[in-house]
């Protein structure tokens, strides 16, 4: 934010001739929006902090779980496999993203495009196979 302000200041200090073609002023509404977005929670939380009454009871300090007493720790450990699957998913998800634009101009790229894409997919297949062999897909 400080940089933004600084840029703004610098831009303003430019001679008027330059101002007309300095489109940074188009961003002023965004900066104002940004300021409001920061100020709003600060003000709301600050006000409530100033006004509220503090009560420290056991019930009050318990995590809120629809009236039911909490069981165990909230910071539960998940199996690392979730992450591996998530990462693999991400990889192939991104692959598909790359496939879309390629598919759109497929005929213009012709054979060259096909080969390139095969190389790209080939690399991913290698990774996929590696993950498979290393047992990343097994759930046990």
């Amino acid at each position, binding site marked *: 934010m*400080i*940089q933004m302000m*600084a*840029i703004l200041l*610098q831009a303003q200090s430019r001679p008027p001739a330059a101002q007309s073609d300095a489109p940074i002023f188009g961003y002023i509404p965004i900066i104002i929006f940004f300021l409001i977005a920061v100020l709003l929670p600060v003000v709301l939380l600050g006000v409530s902090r100033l006004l509220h009454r503090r009560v420290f009871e056991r019930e009050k300090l318990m995590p809120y779980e629809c009236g039911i007493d909490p069981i165990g720790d909230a910071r539960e450990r998940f199996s690392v496999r979730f992450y591996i699957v998530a990462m693999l998913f991400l990889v192939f998800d991104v692959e598909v993203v790359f496939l879309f634009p390629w598919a759109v101009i497929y005929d213009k790229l012709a054979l060259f495009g096909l080969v390139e894409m095969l190389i790209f997919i080939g690399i991913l297949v290698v990774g996929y196979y590696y993950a498979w062999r290393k047992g990343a897909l097994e759930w046990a």
Partner: protein
Amino acid sequence: MLSAIILVPLAGAIILGLAGRRMGERMIGLIACSTVAVSTVLSFYMFFGRLLPLPDDARQIHELLFTWINVGSFRADAALLLDPLSGLYILFVTFVGFWIHVFATGYMRGEEGYWRFFAYLNLFMFSMLVLVLADNFLLMFVGWEGVGLCSYLLIGYYFTKDFANDAAKKAFIVNRIGDFGFALGLMLLFWKSGSIFYFNDPRGIPSAFEWAMKPGGADPATFSAIFAGGLTTIALLLFVGAIGKSAQIPLFVWLPDAMAGPTPVSALIHAATMVTAGVYMVSRASSIYVNAPTAMLIVAVVGAATALVAATIGIAQWDIKKVLAYSTVSQLGYMFLACGVGAFTAGIFHVFTHAFFKALLFLGSGSVIIGMHHEQDMRRMGGLKKYMRITCATMIAGWLAISGVPLFSGFFSKDEILYKSFTSSALHAPWPMVLWIVGAMTALLTAVYMTRLMVLTFWGSERFKEASHSDDHHSDHAHGGDHHPAPKESPLSMTVPLIVLALGAVAAGYLGVPEGLSGGAISNHIEHLLEPAIAHPAETNHALAAEDHSTEFILTGVSVVIAFIGIIGGWLWFKRRPLWQPPRLLEGKYYVDEAYDAAIIQPIKTVSTRVLWKIIDVTIIDGAVNGAANLAARVGDAMRYLQSGLARSYVVVVVVGALLLIGYFVIR
């Protein structure tokens, strides 16, 4: 071809160093000698076959090995140069070196670490040849340090003996002082002239001497010239290097102690070759010296003083090798005397002849020592001539040569030096006369102490029979015999080199018979040869031309008379009383070692313990260190907040740094 001359001994050293441990003595000797033999043959071929056919003023053969350093204006090449000066050096270095190698194969038989000895010796040959063949001062310095290292290793060859270790250390430290001066001189020379090369060469590198030879570049003995860095300073700094390596006053003390090394080492390194490197360097830089008259005078005076002082000490020594060591120091003084009076060629000529007769004398003494079963004290010798005929005969040749008996090699070179110093016009009025008188006195003493050595060793009563074994002798061998069987002649591997060198000692002088002496019948080859490689003081040439030969004849006559007086007087005196007690002052070597001990070593020790240790170290440095430690601890405490090990505090540091940086960039 030139590179082969230096690389073959290196290859020998590497082979012996890596695999020598597993070889037999015969094999080791074969490798060591054959590599030097190859070098010798190549040297002779390069000198006579390639260099001499060239016209007089173009006798230079360059060979670039590789470009070593080339940074900005500083350029140093690993390149070799063969010119008359280096050519003459490689001739006798390889030739004498080869025969000493041969001698050593016999001398070192049965020694612990035979391979190590020859590996070092080959490495020495390599370094010495690099020193001589280098075509710039920096590469020369590499060889210079290399021979120093080999000298250190070989003096300390019997590393289980304390005295050998001490001697090695002494040599090394004293040489460091000299090398420091040399290095400073080198830097100054480069700074002033922008080059470290001897000559302009085909690669388009200018010569360092061009600056020195420039008109107006010559400087008188003004304060600024000496202390603010001029030719005189450079010349003196380089001379400091020469003083160290060539054992001149005041740094000569290491050379006699260096005799703790095996005798072939003494012959090769501490008589014939390495110690003359100083003379070589001064002659190389003759262009600088002739333009720095003050430096010339200092060189001459130091040389003459060393010659005289060492000769007087030599008279009073009992150890046969010590006598020869002081004799070497004395002869080196002669060579510097020659350089100082501007007679560089005469100096080099003396180096050349000296290499033969001094190597011969050392090897002869080695032969005697072996024959006497590791006895070095002349008081326990005598009458050896009938036991060791060859050794005796060859040593007589060396004796006559060094004493300056006419027609032997030493006569020609020494006479030349005396004559040149008498007629020198490079120095002011009283100096030539003074220097000549000192030189003549030295010549007399030389004849006396050499006669004493010969008489005590080979003539007189056979004292080794009556002498009971005493413990104080410094044998250079790990085992001294407890009994004294009759002395016996050494094996062929030792006598053959003696004979060869004896022939050299007789004949080497004829290469440089002074022209006046022979009436021009025999031309002075050495002088003509070296002419283009050496600079002459401007006036000297005219002076020489103007001089008629009568002076030379008179001076020669005086020299001859001196030599004979010395020999006959010495003979009569020592024949009668071989065990004459010389003055204590001389036997104690003027107590120079003791003086150094009292003036330098003890004060340093005292200052070290009393001041440096007790006050500075304990109080100030420890205090400061503790203080610094406290400070560091405090800084550390401060840093601990930063280096807390918590990733989030690291993030804070990074963010603060980033904000500062960005703020600076944006706001300026």
